[in-house]
């Protein structure tokens, strides 16, 4: 399968990428690892007129600690996130989540910022960022603004980024030693979650239970009020309207959300 024709420009810096975004307008797309965008382009589900390559910009890669947070460059590949000693020690849920994306080759190319910008509600990293209470630094012509995970995902494959902005970095709180759980129900190896649940620090995030990753608010409130994991998990699907597909109908997804939430709250991964 061959993508529709497009022009290609390798950005020389993040600010150069912003200038290119400005001059090419909304038909331009940023390219990092390309492991969400290129498959869509090959299927002709996306046909941008210009690709602006930010995948080799050193300023957008790397992992560092900054006070109580870890800061991960948006173009850092999943493999680096999954194997980073710093992330494995201080945000093990994030390292585990990155290790669950696709397969080794995909994790060598796909990036954390790309996965978040793609905003697939069934994907691992959007759910992980919501569970961790993380945020993203968005770089635009007016400067940098920080957007919490709960406000980043605006709809099905849609974020709250402005057209002229790019994700520069991802921030997650450091939580060494804190218990967490991560459940991903799949029928095939390497697949997206039919339903996923990530839980840490009183927060519960659900994947593929709606158009965006969701917080299981009723279950979180029950936990905060002293309910047991099993009791709280019974409320995990409250307020959700999951889609139906060949893998699962709505009732089955809601059932999975309850079972997987209980397992996640028992800190299983």
């Amino acid at each position, binding site marked *: 399968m061959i993508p529709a024709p497009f022009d290609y420009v*390798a950005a020389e810096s993040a600010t150069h990428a912003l200038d290119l975004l400005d001059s090419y307008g909304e038909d331009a797309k940023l390219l990092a690892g*390309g492991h969400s965008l290129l498959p869509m382009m090959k299927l002709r589900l996306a046909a941008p007129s210009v690709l602006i390559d930010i995948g080799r910009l050193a300023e957008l890669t790397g992992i560092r600690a900054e006070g109580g947070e870890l800061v991960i460059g948006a173009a850092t590949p999943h493999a680096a996130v999954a194997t980073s000693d710093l992330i494995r020690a201080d945000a093990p849920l994030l390292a585990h989540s990155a290790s669950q994306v696709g397969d080794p080759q995909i994790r060598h190319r796909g990036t954390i910022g790309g996965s978040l910008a793609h905003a697939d509600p069934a994907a691992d990293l959007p759910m992980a960022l919501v569970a961790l209470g993380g945020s993203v630094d968005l770089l635009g012509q007016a400067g940098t603004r920080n957007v919490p995970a709960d406000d980043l995902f605006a709809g099905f494959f849609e974020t709250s980024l402005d057209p002229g902005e790019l994700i520069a970095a991802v921030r997650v709180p450091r939580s060494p030693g804190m218990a967490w759980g991560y459940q991903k129900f799949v029928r095939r190896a390497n697949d997206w979650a039919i339903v996923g649940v990530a839980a840490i620090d009183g927060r519960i995030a659900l994947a593929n239970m709606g158009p965006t990753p969701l917080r299981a608010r009723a279950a979180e409130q029950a936990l905060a009020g002293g309910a047991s994991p099993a009791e709280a998990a019974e409320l995990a699907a409250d307020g959700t309207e999951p889609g139906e597909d060949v893998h699962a109908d709505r009732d089955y997804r809601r059932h999975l959300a309850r079972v997987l939430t209980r397992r996640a709250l028992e800190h299983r991964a």
Partner: protein
Amino acid sequence: MQVELTVNGQRRSDDVEPRLLLIHYLREVCGLRAANVGCDTTSCGACTVLMKGPGEEGGGTSVKSCTVLAMQANGQQVTTAEGLAADGDLHPVQAAFRQEHGLQCGFCTPGMVMAAVGLLSENPDPTEAEVREGLEGNFCRCTGYHNIVRAVLAAAEAERTGASA
């Protein structure tokens, strides 16, 4: 537009369309037919090659070349199965695949071998479970995987001890 890269140790400069995928660049422009187009959807791994950026250590990391633009390989070193054998001597992973009967029809083999080479460069002493997980991105529809896993473990052993497989 012009892409400049190193393929199997040879520097190249070619005029390509921006939408040209690395797999098609390797097969049709370079004439290297080891990497195969299998599923064409980033699943099967038949198109796996190694890619290494400037300043990176080792032999490169495994990538699915059906999901990489040739332009994304600009300035990089790409290695295909044709680039593994030095002076006609099989690479230890290739030798182990032959020794352990790690293939039947052979279609997945170039990608499987490249994924295994990448795996062993990251983890020279893998357990059987780590080999199976490390090859998660490569499908074989003939062998049932047992001989492939045996071959990768034998290659790891041979590389560690310096013996030929």
